[in-house]
């Protein structure tokens, strides 16, 4: 029997992977992908609680999150492409223009 706790554990694992990815990976594309993982961890949470509480609002919300995540990914990739065109760099630790 798969309970809500299982979902939450899975969500936690994915969130952790996502956060570690964001904080540790140098490649900006991988960072973007890790952000997607964080979104999905959240989505799993929402769906799990939606099921447990027998309330569809959680699932509706997930659809919205996916939509926004798609838009965010598009904007993020656009910025990455613009950045790469100007700097020919893709590693985050080499991009520190906005420092003191």
């Amino acid at each position, binding site marked *: 029997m798969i309970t809500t706790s299982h979902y939450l554990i899975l969500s936690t694992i994915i969130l952790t992977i996502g*956060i570690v990815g*964001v*904080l*540790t990976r140098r490649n900006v594309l991988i*960072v973007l992908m890790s952000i997607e993982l964080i979104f999905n961890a959240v989505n799993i949470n929402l769906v799990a609680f939606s099921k447990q509480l027998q309330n569809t609002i959680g699932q509706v919300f997930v659809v919205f999150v996916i939509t926004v995540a798609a838009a965010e990914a598009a904007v993020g990739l656009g910025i990455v492409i613009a950045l790469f065109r100007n700097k020919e760099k893709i590693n*985050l*630790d080499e*991009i*520190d*223009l*906005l*420092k*003191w």
Partner: protein
Amino acid sequence: MLKYLWLIPLLPLAGSALIGLIGLYRVRVIGRKPNKTLVHTIAVGAVAIACLLSLGAIHDLMSLPQDERVYETVSFTWIPATPLKLTNGAWATFKVDWAYRLDPLSAVMIFVVTFVGFLIHVYSIGYMYEDSGYWRFFAYLNLFMFAMLTLVLGNNFLILFVGWEGVGLCSYLLIGFYFEKKSAGDAGKKAFIVNRIGDTGFVIAMMLIAVTFGTLNFEEVFRAAGAWPTETMTWGLLTGITLFLFLGATGKSAQIPLYVWLPDAMEGPTPVSALIHAATMVTAGVYMVVRCNALFSRAPHTMAIVAGIGVATAIFAATIGFFQRDIKRVLAYSTVSQLGYMFTACGVGTFAAGLFHVYTHAFFKALLFLGSGSVIMGMHHEQDMAKMGGLRKYMPWTYATMLIGTLAIAGIPGLAGFFSKDEILWRAYGGGHKIIWFVAFLTAGCTAFYMFRLIFLTFFGQPRFLDAAEPAEESHHSHGGHGQDTVHGGVGHGHGVRLPHESPKSMIIPLVVLAVGSIVAGYVGMPSYITHTNLWEHFLDPVFRYQAPVSDHGGHDAASTEILMTALSVLIAGAGIFLAYWIYNRRKTQPADEQRSLGVVYQCFFNKYYVDQIYDALIIHRTKDLGTGLWAFDRNVIDGLGVNGSGWVTRSLGRLSGVFDKYIVDGAVNLLAWMADRFSYIFRRIQTGLVQSYAMVIMVGVIAFFSLYMYLSK
């Protein structure tokens, strides 16, 4: 005519204003002097009409019953009613009107002032004709008439004071008439300043009267004072008031100690000496004392002082008059001496006799001064009697009239001075003031002596002007008068020595009129042993309504004593005249001989007892020292310590607060800025520009806050 009373002072004022304005306009705008005929027509006309109005008013006053002879006319309210707290704690309504009062006392005064004033105006036409300041002179003279008439007609102390100051001003202006001469300017200032001292006393007295009686109106003050007791034993309020009033009188009427200005006042033109410094203004003090008889008679201590000062001044000035060489100075000291007589009379309580002497003195002293003016002009502006002599032949009219004046002042029976002087002597004796009588009696002899010395030196003996050097030094006077020579042609004019000449008619006629006056004026006050009642005293009775009852010291002891006293005073006058005759006519003593034969005494008399020098040393230089001291105080303490000191303190404080501002206040501001600058070097390190490190911080923050939340909500 009484209702035109207000016009009497106003006419001369209008005349003065008119002449002054015309003069200023002509001189300043057109650049020429005003027409002389116009000037003296206005001036003499104004005074003549005033004189006629006065005579009319006096006539009307005389036609009233004896007890109703007071006429008051209010022109306007000067000081509107104001509450005034009196010394006794009550509140009075203080109010001063510009009002004139005609009663027997002011009637006598306006008669003397306008009549003698008119004659002197006429005389001035001749005397001042060649003067460049002709219009100025008449403007001042008319202004003086206004002030003097205001003085004697005012119905309260304040109006009297307006006139009092007005005559002082005119006196100053006219003494300094030849202001380009330093001595004249100095004399004017001296007169003004000495008078100021007296006026201070008068003002104080006036304020005391106001806070004591709540009014300055004569009638009200005297009626109130009439209810007061006589301060026989005590020095009370009335004694204080009268002493201050008398201080004012000593200034105006040239008594010890303030007489010093009058002899110097002779620097003015001779008509001025006659009108202001002999006949009218200087008698203002006597007038004031007589006016305030209700106050004075209740203050016996003041009365004693008045009598003492009066008689001391009389003998003091008479002895100075002995050996003066300047013809006008002799007359000036004679005036001081005669004023002393008047105060003596007031001091012994016979105010009527004092006023009688004012009245007769006005005639003969004006006559003598005008005569001396005629002599001076005839001698081509020579005033030194040592250079005269034998003028009888050259100036018969002047000689005759002056002789009459001299006889009158010496107290020869039948002339004006005899009656008044004798009245005073008799009253002093009869009132029991034997010492005062004796000094006054001696003074009568002195008066006869120095006056006849003047006559003998001037009109008798050998002419001394013939052997005098070229009279070149004489022409330093600005006013001419030489033009008259052509009128009286035939005298050696322009040939080395210029012989004396008689004066023009406009000068002789006033002399003759005054000479007649000097003879007849006294008959209104003949002693009671001739007429049944003394007309003069009877006429003046209403004035003394509030006088304190006089205690008689056997004043009624028979006419025989009075006649004896009269004989005595005639005798001493005769002795004085004989002495002068013996010394200056028989032995032909010259002024130069006096010094040789008398030595120290002569020096003492001639130098006026060195009073001027003593005043200089004791008062004037001390005042200057005080001024210098105050100046030093002002400079060092007020300016130095006060002004500059506080300036220095302010500057130092400013500097201090500048330092504080610069280092503490600005320093704090700068410190903050500096600290922000320094700290920014440290904290800006946080902003690495690396997105992942920011995310790390956010992460740690979220976990921290979340943990805290969990911890706290447990």
